[in-house]
């Protein structure tokens, strides 16, 4: 006779599956990093990927940054004007952008574009035997596909974030000067006075870590996709979701490391 189903069993299954997935990702990460530091190095591939991840992400990153800066200026004014503290807007704008909004929003945008693209491309290669073909041609797929992308991701995100910081600040500047009545020189001076090296450095460190996570998640899910077009679609969705979640978790941890007292 069968007893009642154990209500804890589904929770246990989820926990076990989560732990197994964490282990698989950790192993894949270790293998990918080892592959990246061992020769041969596919620098031409890395160059192509740098263009793909960095240069072709510029339009969406620029668009996101300028509207974020504009909205931030407007919202800060709405709040600060109640306490006659409008003069704090340039400081809040530039510090928010360089520390948090620039790196996080840039990374989320790039995750949507690049993680999905890497997962779809690698997943298609998996289901059409192209990854196996790489092995039969004496190439290590991790060295040929993942290592150049990891390098490109880590190197491309920091300049993208710097550009987003500048464009976002310009967005805030446009609204502050054109709509809120700030003097251009005073606004820019306040921005520069408020900005500290650590603000920029922490943003760039975040960017490099986010670049690593974006490529890692795209590659991991692409490598492990199965079951034809449906499997590739699932891998793409999972890549974007997991990259976005990891970016937010990593953002908290790095902020804690840099700024907790």
């Amino acid at each position, binding site marked *: 006779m069968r007893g009642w189903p154990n209500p804890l069993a589904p929770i246990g299954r989820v926990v076990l599956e989560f732990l197994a997935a964490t282990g698989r990702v950790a192993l894949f990460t270790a293998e990918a990093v080892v592959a990246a530091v061992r020769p041969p190095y596919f620098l031409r591939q890395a160059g192509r990927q740098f263009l793909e991840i960095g240069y072709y992400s510029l339009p969406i990153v620029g668009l996101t940054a300028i509207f974020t800066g504009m909205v931030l200026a407007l919202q800060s004014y709405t709040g600060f004007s109640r306490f006659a503290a409008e003069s704090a807007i340039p400081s809040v704008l530039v510090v928010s952008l360089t520390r948090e909004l620039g790196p996080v929003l840039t990374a989320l945008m790039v995750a949507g574009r690049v993680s999905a693209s890497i997962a779809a491309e690698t997943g298609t290669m998996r289901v*059409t*035997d*192209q990854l196996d073909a790489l092995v*039969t*041609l*004496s*190439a290590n797929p991790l060295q040929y596909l993942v290592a150049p992308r990891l390098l490109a991701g880590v190197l491309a995100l920091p300049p993208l974030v710097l550009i987003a910081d500048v464009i976002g600040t310009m967005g805030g500047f446009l609204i502050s000067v054109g709509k809120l009545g700030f003097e251009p020189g005073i606004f820019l001076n306040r921005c520069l006075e408020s900005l500290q090296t650590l603000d920029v450095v922490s943003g760039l460190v975040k960017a490099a870590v986010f670049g690593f996570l974006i490529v890692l998640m795209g590659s991991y899910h692409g490598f492990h996709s199965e079951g034809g077009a449906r499997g590739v679609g699932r891998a793409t969705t999972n890549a974007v979701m997991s990259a976005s979640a990891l970016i937010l978790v990593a953002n908290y941890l790095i902020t804690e490391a840099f700024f907790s007292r």
Partner: protein
Amino acid sequence: MTGSAQTPAIELRGLVKRFGGKTVLDGMDLTAMTGDSLAVIGTSGTGKSVSFKCALGLLPLDAGTVRFAGTPRDALPSNGPRALMRRSGVLFQGGALFDSLPIWENVAFALFHTGTMRRAEAYELACAKLAEVGLDERAANLFPSELSGGMQKRAAIARAVAADPEFLFFDEPTSGLDPITAATINRLIEDCVTRLQATTVTITHDLASARQIANRVAMLHGGRIVWEGPVAELDRSGSAHVEQFVHGSADGPVTGDPSA
């Protein structure tokens, strides 16, 4: 060429491969002597492609041994599998050409990307190999998606033989092709095998292909080889499985369930 007349070039012993609870290979044995061209036939879903991937180390085995020129693949040194791949040429069922690379880079991949050959030299060699399979320089600069299915197969054959391998593996080389293109591909493979004197294993369910390419045939059914012999004996094998396959009959020991 490695291996003596007594040492098989490729030897599979007791291969077992399971997916979940389903046993696809159940103690498969297969031997190809140096210079043999062996065709493995069988119905769809019998595990022909699985055995091919297990032999190459692309899928892990649950049990069994794979030997190349007498050396177990598992006993090779750390760089051994890669060195073994350098001595092997593989044609995948769908071609598996790299979408992101032009045809000539696909053909010269092992020499240019993972070898030491210079770009210009690799381009020349790729064009020469493509010419051998009937593709011109214009095709060399196209991407795989810009070629027809038959041309993709030709390019994939050129890639498989580009490094003049000792061992050749062809997985369903004529699947999805019309009879005329299939016959052309068969002739190309036959030419390559004769020219390279490579030990060749071809997975196919196309008997015309097996008769043209191979000098020996083995039939896989229920995870094991149920008959093996010279291609000339295919029509008088004495095996009920082979006779049913040759005559394409629905009645006989081979049923719709490949594991039965």
